[in-house]
């Protein structure tokens, strides 16, 4: 769109961001530079406050509250009292909720490495000289990212349901085995397949972006030293795309804990998926089926905490290793 305008200006030397705007100037400037940043930041902060900070504070507040309704439908008044960790106790005593977190950990331990590895291999292959038509393949792999999870799940659910699925037919006619994509042992991996299908190309594109940033001289030097493609991949490319790999892994961990649309939609055709199959589904059910907002708030806080802890410990672990 406007790569021309940017290329002329990016040549300017970047300055350290911290240096204050000072110099020979008029009297009005100190006032103007004091007000301007707030004028620019305030609209963003306002929306951020409404849609991030307030809801989080509210969720934390709710999670420590006990709501009592007097009368059959609360018609005689509602009182809220401080409940300490009562809601957290209820949430953690709920075996199904804990099981859903365990299920997502299992899911993440398998699906995230598989997806990131696949994305890395595809990125390396597409960036190697041996690949033909890399532009076409890159576009084909990235395309599913534009398909909403809901639609991707509708698509794949048709490919899973026996009687409708050509895959089940093909496998049956070739091997004679009647595969069941929606059974209690397999449906988690059928969900993993949908997630992998949707996000592999997206992660691949982030990795490719960083591969393209590797200076040409490094390849040149490696080639002079007689390094083959495998050696170049392990000695140069993989170490240099570490930041991209960490970024995509952290986003994938957060995404795993948020899993909702795929299991919720598949539940209709897969009886193995109950209303508390994933942590998010569990919180949704608690809030809207049981109308128990305070326990649901505790669950939402717990989900966010687990996401935080996992992301940070992953970053810690990988940083220490280097």
């Amino acid at each position, binding site marked *: 769109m406007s790569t021309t305008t940017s290329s002329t200006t990016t040549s300017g030397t970047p300055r350290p961001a911290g240096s204050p705007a000072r110099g020979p100037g008029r009297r009005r400037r100190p006032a103007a530079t004091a007000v301007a940043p707030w004028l620019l930041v305030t609209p963003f902060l306002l929306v951020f406050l409404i849609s991030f900070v307030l809801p989080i504070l509210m969720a934390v507040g709710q999670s420590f509250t006990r709501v009592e309704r007097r009368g059959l439908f609360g018609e005689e008044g509602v009182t809220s009292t401080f409940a300490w960790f009562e809601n957290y106790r209820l949430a953690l005593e709920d075996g199904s909720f804990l099981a859903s977190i365990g299920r997502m950990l299992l899911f993440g331990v398998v699906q995230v490495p598989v997806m990131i590895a696949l994305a890395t291999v595809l990125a390396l292959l597409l960036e190697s*000289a041996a690949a033909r038509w890399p532009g076409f393949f890159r576009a084909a792999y990235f395309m599913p990212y534009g398909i909403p999870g809901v639609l991707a799940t*509708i698509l794949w659910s048709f490919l899973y349901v026996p009687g409708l699925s050509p895959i089940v037919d093909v496998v049956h006619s070739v091997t004679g085995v009647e595969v069941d994509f929606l059974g209690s042992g397999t449906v988690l991996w059928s969900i993993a397949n949908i997630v992998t299908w949707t996000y592999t190309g997206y992660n691949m594109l982030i990795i490719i972006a960083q591969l393209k940033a590797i200076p040409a001289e490094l390849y040149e030097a490696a080639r002079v030293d*007689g390094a083959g493609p495998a050696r170049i991949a392990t000695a140069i490319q993989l170490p240099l795309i570490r930041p991209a790999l960490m970024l995509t892994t952290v986003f994938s961990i957060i995404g795993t804990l948020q899993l909702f649309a795929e299991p919720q939609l598949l539940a209709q055709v897969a009886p193995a998926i109950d209303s508390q199959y994933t942590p998010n589904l569990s919180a949704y059910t608690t809030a809207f089926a049981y109308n128990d907002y305070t326990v649901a708030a505790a669950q939402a806080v717990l989900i966010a905490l687990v996401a935080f802890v996992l992301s940070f410990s992953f970053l810690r672990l990988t940083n220490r290793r280097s």
Partner: protein
Amino acid sequence: MSTAADAVQDDRRDSAPDVDPAAGRPDGPASPGAGAAALRRRGRTILVTGVLVVVALYFLAPVYWIVVAASKTTDDLFGTHGFLFAGNFALFDNIAQVLAHDSGIFLRWLANSVLYAGVGSLIATYLAAAAGYALSTYVFRGRNLIFGLVLGGVLVPGTATALPLFLLFSQLGLVNTYWSVLIPSLVSPFGLFLCRIYADATVDRSLVEAARLDGVGEIRIFHVLGLRLMVPALVTVFLFQLVSIWNNYFLPLVMLTDDQLFPITLGLNTWRSQTDRLPEFYELTTGGVLLSVIPLALAMIVLQRFWRGGLTEGAVK
């Protein structure tokens, strides 16, 4: 198919330095060695391209399937092989049915999705650009606090805020309105993060200073100078936000009950959930999925180079 061809050409030009395995290898005798190397290179090309083709089949097969399925009647959908077209080509009947059903509610859902995603991502990009530019250009009290706070926001799962947001909006009387989906879509913490990093690298302080000396106001400097310099990052932020709003399901599901306000994701799911009882909804669902998948799939293919562009310069720096 011209886009794919363009992409291939484009790629040959801007692709990373060739990692050609055979080029630098000290081979023995000149002519037979070169022949063997060329042979090895061709073998490697065939092998790698073969792998890429198989993977492409995996990513494209479901889309091919929906094209086939959308062109079948419900009877054929169950009676004929899923990957083969049936004798009875019903694609246009099905699409007409999708557009006409319930006095054209499909188009209404599509328009809603365009509204939520289009307006939401435009405003979100502008807000992130203004805040990111301010954090990069000015030194002021609270600057690091704001940046840290927003960075934390990147890591908060979007669905974790949806439930409390519902409680908040129900107290404000905003639930089940356009605003309930639009307002949370206006903020992109990741966008601010990207804009700030990009502004650090590209907005030249001497230009800002020169504009000041010319008597240009601070806000005007942002609009005339800052916004223009940040365009590549803004395109990336806009696309990220567009896709994440377009694909969002949890937030509208929590907020909306009136199907006139539904985005396409929610709408098509209500159709699909009726296929159990009413088989004619199979035709509506497959046709509707096809109609809503094609434009975005095409957009992804055309726009993928912009994602790459903004990301190299910003996110993973």
